[in-house]
């Protein structure tokens, strides 16, 4: 049942997310950078792996997730660095809302950026490599994986931008703890692409959901400590 406090919390989350989306709508610098970067990563993989038809079948899931992970860090880092540079974060923290509303707002906007990039990369990849990627199951995996990735990524990027070595810190912090998402997402995507049984895919989906829930809860609990002055 939505109580007034719930409604105001949701409003605060939406306001933070909307602020990012509106800024992005005007500048388009973040999504376009992520997008160009993704296409470059796919290009590099093309030459690194010689993506002929036989290899393609087995590595498509891996290539896609490596691309999403790399583009994701780029976006997460930039989205937090902007807040820090222009003193927006201090402004946000002064707002009379729960700090976790800021966290969820940032997650929402980061997730939207990632999904937009993925929504463009998928058809491009399908087109370039003549592989059909439009499987509802695959889309669900991408959604679940992106949620987990941004949930942890937003928390860690808000730490990373406050360090001296902030440009390089995020991937170093994020990749080792995001390994379960990458394993599960690659396995589940590969399963859908090769037409595996639901029985074989289900454990990976469960793992993704469990990871999403656990890490969203942890980030929700510790975000206060990360932005505290």
């Amino acid at each position: 049942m939505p109580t007034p406090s719930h409604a105001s919390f949701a409003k605060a989350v939406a306001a933070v997310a909307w602020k990012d989306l509106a800024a992005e709508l005007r500048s388009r610098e973040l999504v376009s950078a992520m997008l160009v970067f993704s296409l470059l990563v796919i290009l590099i993989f093309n030459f690194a792996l010689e993506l002929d038809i036989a290899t393609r079948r087995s590595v498509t899931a891996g290539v896609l997730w490596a691309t999403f992970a790399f583009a994701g860090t780029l976006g997460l880092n930039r989205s937090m660095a902007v807040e820090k540079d222009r003193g927006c974060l201090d402004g946000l923290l002064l707002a009379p809302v729960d700090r976790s509303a800021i966290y969820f707002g940032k997650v929402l906007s980061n997730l939207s950026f990632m999904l937009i990039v993925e929504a463009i990369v998928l058809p491009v990849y399908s087109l370039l490599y003549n592989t059909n990627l439009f499987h509802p199951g695959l889309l669900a995996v991408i959604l679940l994986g992106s949620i987990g990735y941004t949930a942890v990524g937003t928390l860690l990027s808000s730490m990373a931008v406050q360090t001296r070595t902030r440009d390089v810190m995020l991937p170093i912090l994020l990749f080792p703890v995001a390994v379960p998402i990458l394993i599960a997402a690659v396995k589940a995507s590969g399963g859908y692409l090769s037409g595996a049984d639901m029985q074989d895919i289900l454990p990976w989906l469960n793992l993704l959901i469990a990871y999403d829930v656990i890490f969203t809860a942890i980030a929700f609990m510790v975000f206060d400590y990360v932005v505290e002055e």
Partner: protein
Amino acid sequence: MQSKSLTLKALDIVSLILLAVSTYLALVFAPTEAVMGQVQRVFYFHVATAWVGMLGFIAAGLSGIAYLRSGDPKWDRIEVAAVEISLVFFFIAIVLGAIWARPVWNTWWTWDPRLTTAAITELIYIAYFMLRQGIEDPDRRARFGAVYTLVGAVSVPITFMAIRLFRTIHPVVIGTQSAEAQGGFNMTGDMKIAFFFALFAFTVIFVDLFWHRIRIGELADQVEQLKLKVMR
């Protein structure tokens, strides 16, 4: 500066003796394993060091939570000590395991759950130290360190389970083992003595090192405070 307490000095000596006895038990006393031969002797220290790494890992996670709850810098020092010891001992366990795996599995390394999880844990620890190094404010350094150990402590078991969904060839000497495991064996009585003694010895060594490292952390904090006082 306070000098080392008597208990700590005694513990140092006990640790050294235990290490010597444990080395003797592992290298001389325990019978040579029939199939693998001498290289199997690595096993006693391999499991013992991995065990210490595990103890450090758990101690780090718990002190991270304790720090976030209390904000007491004592827990931060304990956390750093635990992570440092765990980093070193997991590394030793990995190297010893590789020495064993070369003749037995015919490879130095394989992407098995335990091996991969140990490697990822090492990477998380290295990231932890890089994160701390990049922050000057001691309060923030401690907070971020605690948050990252907490995230790491939760993600490592999930990583382990995730990789475990693949098949594993790592032998399980205690408890049930999967049919695909290679290089497993049954321990005889003397092997068990060497094994459990090594576990016990390394646990004592862990406590000793842990104590030392926490003490160094306290002294380092005092030095930092004195420096600040001089600068003012």
